[in-house]
């Protein structure tokens, strides 16, 4: 059930090098693409229905067409800040196939007529950083980057920039702030980055996987791309599957696959365990119960119809040995830590959610705290510059409504319904939930 298109050659070590990439068909499509008119490529991407692979699922071709129709310099920014808990697919792509990303970026840069691109990579990804940096040098030496690429008259420079450990820099305007050398605080939209982005110049921000897809769309055409996936979520996608499974890992599948098939693909649950819940799209996505998971299809619209989201494609599978109150406390402490602090509902709200959930999980919860979580969370939605506040609120609401019995039990009995009076040795309560 895996459909290996992007990942076809990932098991070959040579694929990481320029020579190995070329041996397996790499840097062929760039030759064709650079001879095409930019608007032809944009049309192909529009026709393919490609949707952003970073989390929001916004149509890529449409994003590109928001650029002003003039000769103003514009930037292409590759979002390699992969930070959504549960997600580790871009890391794989950069470690195994850096040239696939570079080829996709040069083709995309030609489409949007950008002479300069940056790959913004999260600071912790030291190894992929080195791999991509080396690949960029190789690509310059081979004439796939720089002046007059392949004699087509197209100039393009590429550089890589390291973040320094801030989840919010994965938000495109936060990333732009960070690349500008500022705190990674998101900016008000509009203006959208395509109109005013990096240094107030038009900027297109696309995820690693999105940019890699562009090469295949130019290569085979939109119809072949659409052979996989659904009408509104075409193509294949890499899913990072983790949690209580026998064979967690990155799997490339056609969008629209059933969640239960995906769980089977990842080796199924551990012996003797029962499915309790699934987080289908990274920590921001509302959790699904086991019953809902039976019916879930993994594409943008099917999951949206179930009140959750595909997000970055990070599937976290939770079995009956886990305590949902404990997991929510982990998620809330994360968002509290990562809120950039500029909008009050998020700065205060993530703090309150963290504090209230922590209170319950350390045995000091009150009955009214369960409703308080929901009230606070609902007041955090749709009121801030970026989506982090909503991203914290959504899991909170879904956990307390769908697994209310576990929260009520914890408040009443001062211990976990699943794990009992469990304490982590060597860490105080405050440290566990810090």
């Amino acid at each position, binding site marked *: 059930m895996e459909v290996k298109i992007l990942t076809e050659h990932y098991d070959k070590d040579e694929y990481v090098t320029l020579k190995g990439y070329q041996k397996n068909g790499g840097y062929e499509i760039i030759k064709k693409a650079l001879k095409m008119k930019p608007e032809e490529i944009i049309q192909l991407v529009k026709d393919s229905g490609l949707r952003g692979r970073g989390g929001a699922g916004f149509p890529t071709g449409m994003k590109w067409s928001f650029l002003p129709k003039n000769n103003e310099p514009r930037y292409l920014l590759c979002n390699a800040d*992969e*930070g*959504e*808990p*549960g*997600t*580790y697919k*871009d890391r794989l792509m950069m470690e195994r196939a850096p040239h696939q990303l570079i080829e996709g970026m040069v083709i995309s840069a030609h489409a949007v007529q950008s002479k*300069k691109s940056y790959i913004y990579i999260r*600071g*912790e*990804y*030291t*190894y992929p950083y080195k791999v991509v940096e080396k690949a960029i040098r190789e690509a310059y030496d081979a004439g796939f980057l720089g002046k007059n690429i392949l004699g087509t008259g197209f100039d393009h420079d590429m*550089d890589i*920039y*390291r*973040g*320094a*450990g*801030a*989840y919010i820099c994965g938000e495109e305007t936060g990333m732009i702030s*960070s*690349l*500008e*050398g*500022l*705190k*990674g605080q998101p900016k008000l939209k509009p203006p959208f980055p395509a109109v005013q982005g*990096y*240094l107030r110049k038009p900027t297109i921000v696309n995820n690693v996987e999105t940019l890699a897809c562009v090469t295949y769309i130019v290569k085979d055409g939109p119809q072949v791309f659409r052979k996989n996936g659904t009408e509104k979520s075409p193509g294949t996608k890499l899913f*990072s*599957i*983790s*949690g*209580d499974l026998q064979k*967690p*890992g*990155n799997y490339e599948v056609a969008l629209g696959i059933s969640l239960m098939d995906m769980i089977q693909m990842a080796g199924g649950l551990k012996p003797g365990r029962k499915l309790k819940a699934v*987080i289908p799209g990274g*920590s921001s996505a509302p959790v699904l119960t086991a019953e809902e998971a039976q019916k879930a299809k993994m594409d943008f619209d099917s999951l949206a119809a179930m009140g959750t989201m595909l997000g970055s494609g*990070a599937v*976290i599978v*939770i079995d009956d040995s*886990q305590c949902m109150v*404990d*997991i929510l406390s*982990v*998620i809330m402490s*994360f968002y509290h*830590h*990562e809120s*950039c602090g500029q909008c009050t509902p998020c700065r205060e709200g993530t703090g309150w959610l963290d504090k209230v959930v922590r209170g319950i999980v350390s045995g000091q919860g009150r009955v009214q705290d369960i409703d308080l979580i929901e009230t606070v969370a609902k007041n955090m939605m749709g009121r801030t510059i970026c989506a982090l506040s909503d991203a914290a609120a959504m899991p909170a609401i879904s956990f307390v409504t769908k697994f209310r019995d576990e929260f009520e039990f914890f408040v009443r009995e001062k211990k976990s319904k699943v794990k009992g009076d469990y304490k*982590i*040795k*060597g*860490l105080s309560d405050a*440290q*566990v939930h*810090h």
Partner: protein
Amino acid sequence: MFQLSKEGLSFVKKELTRYEDKRSAVIPALYRAQEEHGWINDDVIEHLAQVMEIPEAHIFEVATFYTMFNKQPVGKNHVQVCCNISCAMAGGRELLGSMLEKNHVGLDEVTKDGKFSFSKVECLGSCGTAPMMQVNDDYYENLDQKKVDEILRGLK
């Protein structure tokens, strides 16, 4: 007073012209200073501000915004254990607790011999190989107690 090494200084000077705006050099400069000094304090910020001709306040706000800049001394081996969802579910927090106990040190503190410091860290993108930790720049994945003991014993 902290001062960048000669090589560090020329690195920072180069970074100042590498990007469209010189402020973009602040993060790379902080990384370099941290490599040389271990952590970022007021001395480091003052020095970078002079060298880069960028206000101290600006460098300070960047240094304090980003988690990867250490605002206090760390051990020679800075061990960061992921305690986010998949790693927490797989026992990451228990491993961190055992490391603190075995090394007789508190969270975010440095052992007496200066060899280790242990911190919690948010998701590092190794969820399929949980639990995991990062020691300085290197990832260690699919951990269990035995593996952690071996890794820490092998570190100088």
